[in-house]
């Protein structure tokens, strides 16, 4: 590893994803890197954050010492409620999700196929404890599913693949992927690079992707 900055940091991935969320959107953020999206609302836009455990109008984490064990997000971390927020039960919360009322959901991923299939809940390995949470409801119900993820696993295995080998969370659900190397659209023709991270070449992204990759479209 050199000191050069190649690719995007977690924060930069989150910032890029935030840029692609339209003003006024209702947004649900998955656990992990997706949570960082909330820090990067572009100037002039307002998003309303939903957390599936029963809060619309979720605000940032509270100041140290201000945490309330009964005001948490889906990742069970302390959060705040902004003016205009509302609390509701799980039945109503998933009415919002399943009923198609959430505009954008940003999730993490274990694998994404070239057709937008997502696997993010179980390796399917023997002895693994399957833990699906709300992910399957989100991909089934939310209009636009973004993924933020490192381009490869810690071991260097591709996460963008022709076909997921892990159990699916949902089929043909992901529309755009924000990785550390590139922003990639899932198109009817397969993965297409939309933007390359600084210092990253198309060939490098291809090499780290286990599926055909279409280059940037000339405009």
């Amino acid at each position, binding site marked *: 590893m050199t000191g050069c900055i190649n690719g995007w940091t977690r924060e930069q991935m989150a910032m890029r994803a935030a840029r692609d969320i339209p003003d*006024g959107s*209702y947004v649900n953020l998955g656990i992990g890197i997706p949570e960082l999206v909330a820090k990067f609302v572009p100037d002039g836009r307002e998003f309303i954050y939903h957390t599936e455990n029963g809060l619309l109008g979720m605000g940032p984490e509270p100041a140290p010492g201000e945490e309330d064990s009964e005001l948490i997000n889906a990742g069970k971390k302390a959060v705040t409620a902004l003016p205009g927020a509302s609390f509701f039960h799980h039945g109503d919360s998933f009415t919002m999700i399943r*009923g198609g009322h959430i505009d954008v959901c940003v999730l993490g991923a274990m694998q994404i196929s070239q057709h937008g299939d997502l696997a993010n809940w179980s390796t399917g390995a023997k002895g693994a404890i399957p833990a699906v949470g709300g992910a399957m409801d989100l991909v089934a119900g939310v209009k636009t599913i973004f993924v933020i993820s490192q381009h490869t696993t810690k071991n260097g295995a591709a996460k963008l693949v022709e076909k997921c080998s892990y159990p699916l969370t949902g089929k043909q659900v992901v529309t755009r992927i924000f990785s550390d190397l590139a922003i990639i659209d899932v198109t009817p023709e397969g993965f297409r690079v939309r933007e390359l991270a600084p210092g990253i070449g198309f060939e490098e992204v291809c090499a780290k992707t286990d599926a055909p990759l279409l280059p940037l479209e000339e405009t």
Partner: protein
Amino acid sequence: MINKVISSIASAVKDIPDGATVMIGGFGEAGSPTALIHGLIDQGAKELTVINNNTGNGEVGLAALIASGRVKKMICSYPRSSHSKVFPDLYRAGEIMLEIVPQGTLAERIRAGGAGIPAFYTATTVNTPLAEGKEIRRIDGRDYVLEYGLKADYALIKCEKADRLGNLIYNKTARNFNPIMCTAANITIVQARKIVDVGGLEPENVITPNIFVNRVVEVANPVIESDLVAEGISYP
């Protein structure tokens, strides 16, 4: 800044097209968005499918919309009007279609439509003529009928207080069908007795979270249908 407040009833309802399916809140006159309905009459959309528990009162509000000839079909549980023969006369003349749905099934179909549930089973109507032609399934030894979720293009809603984000609270039994209809329409248009500042509604007490609302118009002193009926008024 998200601001769902619209300054006039006319602009709030202006894009409702001919042929639209419109849910209208209220049970009898309680919770009836009469000002919005009158706005819809003025606007002129026709061939509407209207979903409401009843068929209006006297010759105002929903009854007036029906009388105007703009409603192609009613979906309701109790198509009787107070102090009015508007619906019965059109129905007997074959000029309006009727889909009769038990009140609880109507409520659940609307709730299902809003919640992304395309169909569900219920014991209501089993062994009655209203179950004829529907799928029956035996589950744990009891028969149930398959019913489908209901959605609408628009919902016309009355509430007590709203904020600019679209959070709503209601007044007593004027709540009725309004909150579930908010969830089931593509565009939800609300007549609020008062618009308050964001933060003016307690998060624990919000009945309709703002995600279900698209437009809010303040109607500070809404007409009371029974007053209009008592005065013998016909709209327009």
